[in-house]
């Protein structure tokens, strides 16, 4: 671990109010099960994922599309609709009765923790807000029952919170389509954090925005998270965003986690062949050597490769990789890799 990483971790521990992680996922499996015209099919979008998010931490999840990251978020937030089903594993939250998976929670327990303890920033927040209602109503719908208070005091709180994301109170009277993309995203961030939740899950929060606005929104996201003492689980395919914002980073491939480490360390010394390739493919000023693409394409999650999902494209593939599935093993402090070739399980 480098000095910088050690510093970040020390800072976090000092600021944290809880030693226990806010989120612990163990062996989570979520499949899309379809039966259509007599053909049964399981798309194994998330196939055995384990990680944890600590207090006062910004944890990132990266991976290409179809790596399963969006499905993972839906499963964690218990926001699944058929044909998506949780098939195994647990999702434990610190603020939910200990040793109980969120999927075993009763509707009343879920209703109590939704938004108050666990909130969600959506992908493509263009349509996250009801198009026929003013922004003010969305705040009322989402937060009033948790924060309570009279109409006037509630509104005062909302306005005060809007200042954190640098939005004027005039935004409350607007309809969603009247706001720019950046403003809409900031409204969503404000909405997600107003109840001071312990965990905020953000799914591609800046993907639909242009680069200039992106940085602004990312800064805002970090500031708000820090100020409200929330942990942030950030999912995006954009590694630049991860580099900028996250404390720790996990890389997903084919529905599984393949590497996890403090962000700075992962960028400096990736271990897993896929992660190595990802990091190497980032453009660096001054680099002139042409990039080499990985052979093949992302795995078909309905019929995934046996053993390690990456082995058909891996330059270090061995016979073992085809037969057995590597587990995540710690190769350095805080640094886990799932690969037989790189100091994985012996």
């Amino acid at each position, binding site marked *: 671990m480098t000095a910088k990483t050690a510093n970040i971790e020390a800072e976090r521990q000092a600021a944290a109010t809880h030693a226990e992680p806010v989120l612990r996922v163990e062996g989570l499996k979520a499949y899309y099960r379809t039966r*259509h015209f007599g053909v049964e099919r399981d798309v194994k979008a998330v196939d055995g994922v384990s990680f944890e998010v600590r207090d006062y931490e910004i944890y990132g999840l990266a991976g290409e599309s179809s790596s399963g990251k969006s499905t993972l978020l839906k499963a964690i937030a218990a926001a699944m*609709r058929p*044909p*998506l089903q949780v098939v195994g594993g647990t999702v434990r939250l610190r603020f939910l009765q200990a040793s109980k998976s969120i999927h075993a929670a009763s509707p009343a327990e879920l209703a109590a923790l939704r938004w108050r303890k666990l909130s969600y920033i959506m992908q493509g927040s263009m349509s996250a807000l009801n198009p026929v209602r003013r922004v003010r109503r969305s705040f009322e719908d989402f937060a009033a029952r948790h924060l309570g208070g009279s109409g006037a005091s509630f509104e005062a709180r909302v306005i005060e919170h809007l200042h954190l994301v640098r939005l004027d109170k005039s935004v409350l009277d607007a309809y969603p389509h009247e706001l720019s993309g950046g403003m809409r995203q900031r409204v969503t961030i404000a909405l997600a954090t107003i109840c001071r939740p312990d965990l905020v899950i953000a799914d591609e929060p800046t993907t639909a925005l242009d680069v200039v606005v992106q940085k602004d929104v990312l800064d805002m996201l970090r500031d708000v998270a820090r100020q409200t003492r929330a942990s942030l689980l950030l999912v995006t395919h954009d590694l630049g965003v991860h580099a900028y914002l996250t404390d720790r980073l996990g890389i997903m491939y084919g529905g599984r986690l393949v590497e996890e480490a403090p962000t700075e360390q992962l960028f400096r010394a990736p271990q897993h062949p896929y992660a190595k390739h990802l990091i190497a493919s980032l453009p660096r000023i001054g680099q002139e050597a042409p990039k080499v693409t990985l052979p093949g394409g992302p795995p078909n999650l309905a019929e995934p490769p046996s053993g390690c999902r990456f082995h058909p494209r891996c330059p270090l593939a061995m016979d073992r990789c085809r037969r057995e599935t590597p587990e995540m093993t710690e190769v350095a402090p805080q640094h886990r890799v799932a690969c037989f070739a790189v100091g994985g399980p012996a």
Partner: protein
Amino acid sequence: MLTTLRDLLRYNPEFRIGAVLLGLVVGMAALSFVSPYAPLDTFVVAPDVPPSWQHPFGTTSRGQDVFWLLTFAIRNTLSFGILVAVLSRLLSLLIGLVAGYKGGWVDRVLMAINDTFIAIPLFPILVLFYFVLRDAMSWTALAVIMALLGWAYDARLIRALALSLKSREFTYTGLFSGMTTREVLVREHLPYVMPIVFATTMNNMNWSIGLEVTLSVLGFTDINSPTVGGMIYWANQHTALVAGVWWWIAFPVFLVVLLFIGLFLLAVSMNEHIDPRSRLRRMGAEGGA
């Protein structure tokens, strides 16, 4: 297209029921070719006989066997519906595709006219036609008139489809890889167009046959060649219900209702099948919890 039909038949209960009902009706119509009685003959059997082995649907007050008369009636009604459907398909495809593909002011003008025909209440217009033409309004004339009036709703649907196809990536891919416009239209777009044409045809037939029955019942069509509506008209003229000859009305009504429901189910199930969003929902709902 054929594989779609086969799959729907196998797995979609609504489609199956619709196909069965339609099959029944078409079967009835086909029987007309072996009818022992000519359709226009009257008083060939004892009148007002209730349903029996000899006359399964009874006989009319004009001495006609209801069952065999019905086979002709349903055949004429069906042919009428098909004729209108074919003619108006041509119109709605033409206008819908031109409006969708050309866009611009052509589109706007066509759609303004289109919306006009949707808004105008057609029944008074048809009555006016009948009033003016009287006996000159043959079945073909009526079919042509209805086709000229009834293309609007479907044209809009086809235009929407054309708009979406025009800007899809596979269209550009086809064009850039050297396919001619005609090849693109036939090989790439036609598989999308066929299901919609199918669904709208079913709906159109329901509409035209419904109007035909309504007009005939009032006596506003050529009531000499037998149609379902015509049978009901004659039954009313002979005050069949009051006279207790209920079978003269009940069987035509029953059969034509089967036809309507059958066509409707076919159209609805095809529409649902085309809609991609509902497809995911249906796939998931059937599989697992």
